[in-house]
C-alpha cells in the first residue's frame, strides 16, 4: 500500500531560494533546495543553527512574509499548486487546515490570554465551520488523543499553567485538529527533557501511522532523526548536502559534513578519555559564503576545485544523493576544463 502511495507527491519544493536583505544585499538563507514529501512519510531535515532549515519550513507556509522583506525564487508545489504564487489571504485556507506547524517553544506560540479550549476551538470554528459546542467536543477529543490526562480540566486552563510537555501536546492537538495532510514540526522536542521528548516522539509517530499524515521533521539532533524519520536531508548553509533513507544515511554517511556531524556526538559508544573528533571552525555567516562548496572552509578534504566550483548533487545509490566533489569524479574534470 505504501508503494502505490509513494507515486503521488504531497509537497514538492523545486530549487527554492529564500533571500533576506542585509545591508542592501540579498543574502540567501535557503539556496536552491529541492525536496519531495509523499503521503504518510516522515521526512527529517537536520542541520546546525544557521543552516536555513527553519526558514525553509516557514516559507512553505509563507510565515515570513508579514514581518520582513523576503524574496522567493523557485516553486513550492502543494498538491500541484504553487504556494509562492498565492495571494497571502488565500494562505489562510491552507495554514492550520491542510498544513500545520508546531514550533520549538510552545509557550511563545500559544496565546497567553485565551484558554487552551478556546484556542483549539478557534481553529475548528474557522476552518471547519463547526459550532462552538461541536468544536469544544472535538477539542476534548484531540486533547485526549495527545495523551493529556484530564482533557476537560485542561480545556479551561491557560497555557502558562501547563508544563512544557503538556504545552507541546496542546500545540500538537491544535495543529492536528483539522486533520492536516502535512505537519511541519520545527524542533518540537528541543526544549523538552529526554523522557518527555520520548513521549512526544512516540505521539508523533503514532499519529503519523494512524492518520497517515505526512510530517516534515526539523531538528538538529541526529539521535532524534534516527528514532522517527523515514528519510533524512542534511542541510548546511542553505543547501542540502546529503539525502538518503534514514538507515542508509547512518550506516553509510558520505558527505564529510555528515560524517563529522555523526562523529562528534558524544554518544554512548564513544571511547571515553579520548578527544572527540571535531569539525574545525564554525559556520560562516551568510555574507561570507565561500564561492565553491559551502563546506570547504571546514572540510578536511577540500582542494582548489572545492573552493572555486560549487559541487553538484550526485546520486551515488538509489535515493542517496551527495553534494560533494569527492563523489563526482567525472563531473569534476569536466567542470575544471570548462573553467
Amino acid at each position, binding site marked *: 500500500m505504501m508503494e502505490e502511495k509513494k507515486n503521488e507527491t504531497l509537497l514538492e519544493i523545486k530549487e527554492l531560494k529564500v533571500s533576506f536583505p542585509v545591508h542592501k544585499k540579498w543574502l540567501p538563507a535557503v539556496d536552491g533546495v529541492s525536496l519531495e514529501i509523499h503521503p504518510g512519510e516522515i521526512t527529517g531535515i537536520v542541520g546546525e543553527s544557521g543552516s536555513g532549515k527553519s526558514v525553509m519550513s516557514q516559507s512553505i507556509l509563507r510565515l515570513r512574509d508579514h514581518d520582513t522583506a523576503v524574496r522567493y525564487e523557485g516553486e513550492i508545489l502543494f498538491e500541484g499548486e504553487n504556494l509562492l504564487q498565492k495571494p497571502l489571504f488565500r494562505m489562510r485556507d491552507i495554514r492550520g487546515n491542510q498544513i500545520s506547524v508546531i514550533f520549538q517553544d510552545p509557550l511563545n506560540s500559544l496565546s497567553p490570554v485565551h484558554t487552551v479550549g478556546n484556542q483549539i476551538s478557534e481553529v475548528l470554528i474557522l476552518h471547519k465551520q463547526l459550532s462552538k459546542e461541536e468544536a469544544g467536543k472535538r477539542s476534548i477529543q484531540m486533547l485526549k488523543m495527545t495523551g493529556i490526562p484530564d482533557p476537560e480540566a485542561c480545556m479551561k486552563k491557560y497555557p502558562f499553567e501547563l508544563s*512544557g510537555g503538556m504545552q507541546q501536546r496542546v500545540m500538537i492537538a491544535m495543529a492536528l485538529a483539522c486533520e492536516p495532510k502535512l505537519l511541519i514540526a520545527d524542533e518540537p522536542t528541543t526544549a523538552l527533557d529526554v523522557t518527555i521528548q520520548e513521549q512526544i516522539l512516540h505521539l508523533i509517530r503514532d499519529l503519523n501511522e494512524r492518520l497517515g499524515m505526512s510530517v516534515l521533521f526539523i531538528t538538529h539532533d541526529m539521535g532524534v532523526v534516527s528514532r522517527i524519520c523515514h528519510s533524512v536531508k542534511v542541510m548546511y548553509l542553505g543547501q542540502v548536502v546529503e539525502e538518503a533513507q534514514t538507515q542508509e544515511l547512518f550506516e553509510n554517511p558520505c558527505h564529510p559534513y555528515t560524517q563529522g556531524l555523526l562523529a562528534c556526538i*558524544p554518544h*554512548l559508544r564513544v571511547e571515553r578519555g579520548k578527544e572527540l573528533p571535531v569539525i574545525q571552525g564554525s559556520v560562516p555567516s551568510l555574507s561570507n559564503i565561500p564561492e565553491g562548496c559551502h563546506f570547504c572552509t571546514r572540510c578536511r578534504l577540500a582542494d582548489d576545485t572545492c573552493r572555486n566550483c560549487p559541487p553538484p548533487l550526485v546520486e551515488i545509490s538509489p535515493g542517496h544523493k551527495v553534494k560533494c566533489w569527492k563523489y563526482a569524479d567525472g563531473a569534476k574534470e569536466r567542470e575544471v576544463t570548462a573553467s
Partner: protein
Amino acid sequence: MSEHLLEIKNLKKTFPLRNGGWFGKKERMCAVDNLSLTIEKGETYGLVGESGCGKSTTGRMIVGLTKADSGSILYEGKDISKMSEREFRPLRKELQMVFQNSLSALNPRLRIGEILEEILQIHGEQDKAKRRKRVLEVLEKVGLSEEHYFRFPHELSGGQVQRLGIAGALIIHPKLIVCDEPVSALDVSIQAQILNMLMNLKKELRLSLLFISHDIGVIRFISDRIGVMYLGTLVEETDTETLFANPLHPYTKTLFAAIPDPYIQGGEFQALTGEQPVRTEDFQGCAFYSRCPYAKEICKKQAPEFREVEPGHKAACHCIEK
C-alpha cells in the same frame, strides 16, 4: 583515599511556592532535599537530571550564589554554607562557575580584555602589565587569540562566547569550576570542540569540575563519577563505567533508554509516563514513586535510604536486592 575537596552533607534548599495570602497555607517547594555528595581533587563529577531536578541550584549553592537552608558544604574542611560574605570572599577565587548562556553574564559595554582584566583587578592584581599578560595567556588557553582582546562580547559566535566564559573562570586560578550546562546551547560540532578543550584544560591545570548537564552522552564523555538527580535528591551515584554497565535505579534505566542514539535502534521502549511532580516540604516516600513502573506500597510511605549497594555504587530504591 585522597582528601575530599568538597563535601556536601544533607543539603536542603526551599523556595516559596505560594505565600497563601493572609490566612492561607504557606507552601514551600524543596528544590534540593537531603543531598550529599563528595568531589575529590582532580575529579570531574557529573550531575545529570531533567530540568527542575535541582542540579543548577546545587551548583549555585556551591559557589555561594544561593544560600542553603540547612546542611553543610565543606570546602577543604571549611563549611562555606554558613560563612559571611566577607569570610567567603577569598574563597570565591577558588570556586568558579561557567554558565549556560555566558553572553548574559558578560558586560556588553566592555571589551573582552577589559572584562577579563576587571576580574583580576577585583581579586587584587594592581599591576596593569601583569594583568594584560595574564589575560592574553588565558585567551590563548581557551583557543581565542590576541585579536579578540579589543572585541565586544556580541561580536563573538556562541562557541567563542562560551570559551570566554571559561576564560573568565580560569583567569584567577580556581580549584573547582562548576560548569552549569556549558555546552547545551551549542551546535554539536561546536559542543565537541568545547568538550575537548575542557577535558584538556582539566588535565593540564589539575582542576576539579562539577559538570551539570541534562545530556547523558555529554556527561558520560566528560565525567569520572556521575550522580543522577531526580526531584531534588540523588537517586544513584557511581563511577561512569559502572553506571553505564549496570544502572540500578529504575529512573536511571529509563533515562538511558530514552536517549535517542542513531546507532542503537531503540527496541520498543515504553516511554515513561507522567512528569516530575512538585516536591513540597511534607513530601513523603520515594521521589520517583509517581512514575516508577515497579512502585510498591512501601515506596509511597517511606523514603528509601541512599545506600551503598556495591562498593562505590550508591542508589536509593527499595526494590534493589541487597
